């Protein structure tokens, strides 16, 4: 095939290798979408063999810049140099030829195909017209996996793999295409702490082997843990190029957001009121028919935040779904008692209510899957702000005909109060950044004035500014006497917000502890261990070296 005949441009440039210390140099890159300037004269210089962080809030233009480097987006102007050589990248095929590989935020894998098929796709042994050589493809994948220490079974279908393993396949895909420059777009957003540490080890090993890694993130701790240098973008512009060793979280955060950011949540001690949510011996099955909840019991009081900690997949999602009326419980009882308002003292059994009924008795829900169950992406901000409440007399005559003027006014008010950055409330929610999408949900759910607020991964994939905002609002709601159930995979978030922490493991609450509990203690509980458990060293690794 013609791609293979052409000599890779990067190799052609090898005599000049010494001329430039930079594997990647992007100069004055500009890219405007209708109504948005994504990249405004952005410069990026990445040294050969380093791990370079590209940080910025959502919408700062990180992904656009990398999509330009990978050929998925054409810049309006600007120059790209690879190993000192000026190049034109007009598609992913050009990028591959230049030994650039990219692991996208949303994986570029084909679920019904096998690992090997996904890895060799486009560069199959034998070329396009040959018979697919399963054995050879398998062999190549195993060789690659042995060489880089990334074990994988080549014959498994992607849909059967965990997210962490899928990401490994993505990395192998790039390495199969002989990538020397590896771009990872927010790779840790979907990983468990354990998987994140494994990924970091892999990236460090790759860097030692001379690969250049560009690591997009907005998690500051990861920047400090992993990278050598940092480029910070804000609203499409460069605001800093730093050496990681010489900086700190506060400085990067300030550059990203453009002002001082409170990384710690400020809150007063809780003043818990009566019990609002009571869960007794709850059982439920997962989608696969396994017993996801095996007798969960706990209470949440008015005016407190109960955090549920745990490695993802230990029943937290199912718990939230049962409580919010999206999944049937197989046994047990859930009640909600009003602690304020006209119905104070009234108790509702919500065990077998559907999502609409649950909302009607005063439960608000920020779902973990923002795009899937939180919003109708293609619909306007206006419509999304009344989703689930569209029959309220305030928004509809006779529960049926929408009062559009009223809805528009409502949406404008929420957008203002919750600082959703958008030129218009008539835009589809899809057009907003992740953080602003999440603010739309938060606004909608808070504005319902609930008795109980269930917040599942409320800041997942959201930038620092929005995280700070959402955290502050959650504490405000607590202080206003709401009961809040917080489910999060981020241990930091759980620890800084919660008044009590329930740790879930394999469908059970193993313990309820105070937020003063040490990270080691929580880590042990999260992995099912007891403080006297066997392998202390391994557990300590799971919980992370954040204290350092």
């Amino acid at each position, binding site marked *: 095939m013609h791609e293979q005949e052409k000599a890779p441009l990067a190799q052609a440039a090898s005599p000049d290798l010494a001329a430039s210390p930079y594997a990647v140099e992007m100069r004055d890159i500009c890219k405007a979408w209708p109504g948005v300037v994504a990249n405004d004269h952005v410069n990026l210089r990445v040294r050969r063999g380093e791990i370079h962080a590209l940080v910025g809030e959502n919408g700062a233009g990180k992904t656009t810049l990398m999509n330009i480097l990978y050929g998925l987006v054409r810049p309006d102007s600007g120059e790209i140099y690879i190993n000192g050589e000026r190049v034109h990248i007009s598609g992913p095929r050009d990028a591959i030829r230049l030994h650039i590989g990219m692991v996208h935020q949303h994986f570029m894998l*084909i679920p019904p195909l096998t690992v090997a098929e996904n890895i060799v796709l486009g560069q199959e042994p034998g070329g396009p017209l040959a*018979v697919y050589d399963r054995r050879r493809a398998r062999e190549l994948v195993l060789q690659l996996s042995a060489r880089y220490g990334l074990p994988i079974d080549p014959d498994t279908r992607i849909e059967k793999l965990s997210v962490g393993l899928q990401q490994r396949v993505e990395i192998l895909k790039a390495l199969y295409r002989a990538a020397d420059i590896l771009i990872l777009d927010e790779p840790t957003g979907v990983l468990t702490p354990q998987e994140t540490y494994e990924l970091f080890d892999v990236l460090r090993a790759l860097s030692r082997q001379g690969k250049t890694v560009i690591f997009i993130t907005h998690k500051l701790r990861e920047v400090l843990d992993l990278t050598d240098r940092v480029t910070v973008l804000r609203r499409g512009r460069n605001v800093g190029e730093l050496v990681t060793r010489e900086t700190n979280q506060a400085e990067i955060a300030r550059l990203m957001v453009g002002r001082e950011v409170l990384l710690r949540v400020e809150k007063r001690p809780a003043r818990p009121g009566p019990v609002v949510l009571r869960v007794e011996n709850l059982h439920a099955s997962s989608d696969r028919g396994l017993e996801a909840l095996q007798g969960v019991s706990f209470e949440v009081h008015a005016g407190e935040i109960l955090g549920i900690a745990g490695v993802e997949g230990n029943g937290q999602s199912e718990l939230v779904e049962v409580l919010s009326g999206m999944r049937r419980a197989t046994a047990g009882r859930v009640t909600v008692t009003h602690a304020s308002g006209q119905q104070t003292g009234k108790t509702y059994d919500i065990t077998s209510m559907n999502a609409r009924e649950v909302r009607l008795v005063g439960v608000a829900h920020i779902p973990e899957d923002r795009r899937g169950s939180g919003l109708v992406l293609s619909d306007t901000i206006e419509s999304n702000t009344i989703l689930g409440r569209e029959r309220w007399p305030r928004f509809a005559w006779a529960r049926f005909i929408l009062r559009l003027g009223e809805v528009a006014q409502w949406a404008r008010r929420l957008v203002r109060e919750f600082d959703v950055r958008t030129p218009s409330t008539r835009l589809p929610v899809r057009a907003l950044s992740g953080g602003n999408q999440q603010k739309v949900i938060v606004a909608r759910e808070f504005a319902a004035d609930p008795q109980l607020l269930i917040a599942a991964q409320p800041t997942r994939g959201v930038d620092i500014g929005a995280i700070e905002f959402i955290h502050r609002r959650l504490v405000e709601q607590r202080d206003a006497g709401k009961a809040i159930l917080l489910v999060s995979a981020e241990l930091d978030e759980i620890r800084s917000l919660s008044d009590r922490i329930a740790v879930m493991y394999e469908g059970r609450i193993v313990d309820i502890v105070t937020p003063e509990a040490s990270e080691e203690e929580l880590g042990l509980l999260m992995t099912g261990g007891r403080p006297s458990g066997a392998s202390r060293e391994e557990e300590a690794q799971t919980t992370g070296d954040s204290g350092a």
Partner: protein
Amino acid sequence: MFWPIFLRVITSGDLWQASLQFAALLLLPALGGVISERSGVVNIAMEGMMLIGCYVGVVVTLASHSVLVGLLAAIIAGGLLALVHGVVSIHLKADQIISGIAINVAALGLTNYLNIVQTGGQGIPSLASNLRLPVLNWGPLAQLPFLGQVLFQQNVVFYVTIIILVGLQFLLFRTNLGLRIRAVGEHPQAADTAGVSVRLIRYACVVASGLLSGLAGAFLALGVAGTFNSNMTAGRGFIALAAVVFGKYTPLGAAGACLIFGLGLALSVRLQDTGIDSNLLATLPYILTIIALIGLVGRTVAPAADGVPYEPGSAE
């Protein structure tokens, strides 16, 4: 009265010969549908492409006095019409259903109009037997009892269809190109970022579906009917579409579905002696389909990106 006739019909070579012929006529456009949809482009215009194939095949055969030239012209005509669908749905990213409907309507109107203008409303006369696609001569094999009639007295295109069927099944599931086609239909972004040209693959597959439909048109007009009649495809392209879905988007599956349809069509013709109302009989193929769908075929899942135009850079 019913059962004796039914038994005679069901055991006759006539019925099975006709079933296979009808099935092959449906299978060609169905294979076109399979390859197009596998690459992620919904094609409901096989009907129109087939009809154009019929018309062009007959007209060119009459003009050139060569059935081979007519056959090629029919195939190319189908391919060109498919190219239109390709440009509209791949390049211009328009709604593929609308494009398909437009092509079907346009093909029907155009062939009708040209037919009337050209012959002054007389209609095209029957083709001489040397200007038709012949029945392939298998020599002594054709004399075998029952099997001879069913398998070895078929039109030459029938055998071509079988070869294409096997070839396409192999291509899609055993070759690198097939892997790319399936990848493009499931997840074009993934294919693109892996270095596969989504556009090239989709164009090739859509045009292939037109070539196959054109061939089906030639088979119908030059092989079976020996003439052109207005709307002579009579919905076959649409039944083929159903076969694509019932066949779970695989060539062999589509072939199975076409066999059931073919049998139903043949039965509805042959059972008219039993005294059952002919209108009722005409529903038979469709009833068979529904039964097959409920009983034999599970849920069918279309390729994930079927019908979705590809936008590079929309990865986020």
